[in-house]
């Protein structure tokens, strides 16, 4: 079997400060196979976004960050790569979609200019005419009816949903093998969010990309992911296939989290007890959904 797209083993992260080290990740392991959509779900401060930043190689340059453990991307140990090599992966082999599309696009450049820059990451000598043609096609793929007009627009002239589609098109333009989506669509209205998720799902399937989907919104995760890791205070609480994990949560933290979500079927406001020690119970792994063995 070929190596999974992403493999994280016993990842630990601490931030050094004058008063000592503050631990954020306490040894998390996860993997994403080719073409898989995997969600990392947790509350704010659980460590889900820093995990994404480590995968992208962005925290490694921070001197106060103490990182240990293995992060392997397509079989290559990220720690053994130079900063330049990690940089070369970003925007080409791996890309990212952020929560707020409007603030992740540069307001002073037209979409066409920004799209050209994206395509230059993979092919520095690409001609503007060719990149425009490819951009138009990519925008048409994300159901943008009028790609030429969008390319000539500035981000603030487009709606949030439109900007999010532009982001999706850009993120997939260089055929990355891994797409990291950090709370995509949470800043959007529900109807637009639903469309965006559908579109993203369709697009990653077409491009055969794997996805690390980071979210605190359990409903969105249920809709999008094949597999789920629940993270609580820097530890994996439960991992398993989406349907089984939602229908039959086994870890006390996952159970509390799911109980807390108000239901559309209307059962009143849930009673939530205070955070309990049981949230730190060992990881619950659904049968057959453990971490693959492999040479570290």
């Amino acid at each position, binding site marked *: 079997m070929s190596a999974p797209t992403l493999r994280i083993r016993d990842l630990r992260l601490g931030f050094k400060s004058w008063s000592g080290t503050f631990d954020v990740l306490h040894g998390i392991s996860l993997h994403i196979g080719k073409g898989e959509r995997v969600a990392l779900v947790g*509350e*704010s401060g659980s460590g889900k976004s820093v995990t994404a930043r480590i995968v992208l190689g962005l925290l490694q340059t921070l001197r106060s960050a103490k990182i240990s453990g293995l992060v392997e991307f397509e079989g290559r140990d990220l720690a053994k790569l130079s900063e330049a090599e990690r940089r070369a992966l970003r925007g080409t082999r791996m890309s990212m979609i952020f929560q707020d599309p409007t603030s992740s696009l540069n307001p002073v450049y037209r979409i066409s200019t920004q799209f050209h820059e994206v395509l230059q990451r993979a092919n520095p000598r690409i001609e503007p005419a060719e990149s425009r043609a490819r951009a138009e096609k990519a925008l048409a793929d994300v159901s943008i009816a009028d790609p030429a007009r969008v390319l000539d627009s500035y981000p603030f002239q487009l709606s*949030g949903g439109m900007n999010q589609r532009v982001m999706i098109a850009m993120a997939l333009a260089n055929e990355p093998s891994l797409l990291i989506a950090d709370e995509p669509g949470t800043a959007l*209205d*529900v*109807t*637009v*969010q*639903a469309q965006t*998720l559908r579109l993203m799902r369709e697009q990653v399937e077409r491009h055969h990309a794997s996805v690390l989907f980071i979210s*605190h*919104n*359990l*409903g*969105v995760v*249920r*809709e999008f992911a094949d597999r789920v890791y629940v993270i609580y205070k820097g530890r994996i609480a439960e991992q398993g296939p989406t349907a089984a994990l*939602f*229908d039959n949560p086994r870890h006390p933290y996952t159970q*509390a*989290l*799911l*109980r*807390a*979500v*108000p*239901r*559309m*079927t*209307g*059962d*009143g*406001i*849930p*009673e*939530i007890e205070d*955070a309990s020690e049981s949230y730190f119970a060992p990881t619950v792994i659904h049968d057959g959904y453990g971490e693959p063995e492999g040479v570290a």
Partner: protein
Amino acid sequence: MTQPLLSLRSVSKTFHTGGREVKAVDNVSFDVAEGECLAVVGESGSGKSTIANMILGIYPQTIGEISYKGSALPARRDLVHRRSIQLVQQNPLSSLNPRRTIGASLRLALDVHGIGERAGRNDRTGQLLEEVGLPASFRTRSPAALSGGQRQRVAIARALACQSELVVLDEPTSALDVLVQARVLRLLADLRKSRGLTYLFITHDLSVVRNIADRVAVFERGKLVEIGTTATIFEAPNHPYTRKLIAAVPVVTADEVALRKRFMEEANANV
């Protein structure tokens, strides 16, 4: 029928921006009964925040009438109305003054409205904190030393400090994590019962609305498209936009998935 606490009659609000006229709220009429929780739902640009701002007197309506307990609210509010209608905003970090202690923020509300004896007001701030489930000792802390949920509790305590009757809740739990959200919603429901409060609950989160509101008003682009009891809106919505909105909500249980599927089919059938 008893007199409604708040009533809007043919209210419109037009903004002028860059030489264009934008009708943010278009000929809207509805009542809020005393003691009820009316949810105002809609997507961005639906006019729900504009309605809140007009009710609070932040700016006047262009046309129409807003009346409170049977008498029209003046464009410039007097102290009594400012006291009885209070606001809880989405982000407590920006609605609480970071330079003031929690106690001072609460005390200010008491001072402005001259509530209680001067000497007893500091004790009163402690009681208010306890009412929202926080220890009285939090009086000396600054907002930065509190978590998001705790801060939102302080914002609620401040809205209650001056014996308010109508509380406008503008996305009060959207910025909170789901476990914290559940506790704050529970607190809001309990306070409504114990203090006989009336809520205007503005949100885009329909699953929250389903469990806290008595009635729901659905807005689309400044127009009130549907208003009814929570049960009616969620079980037999009339307007296609309401169905579309319900069908778009991401859900977590199998029962909800089934419910949503039904609405999707109905929404598609109506296209």
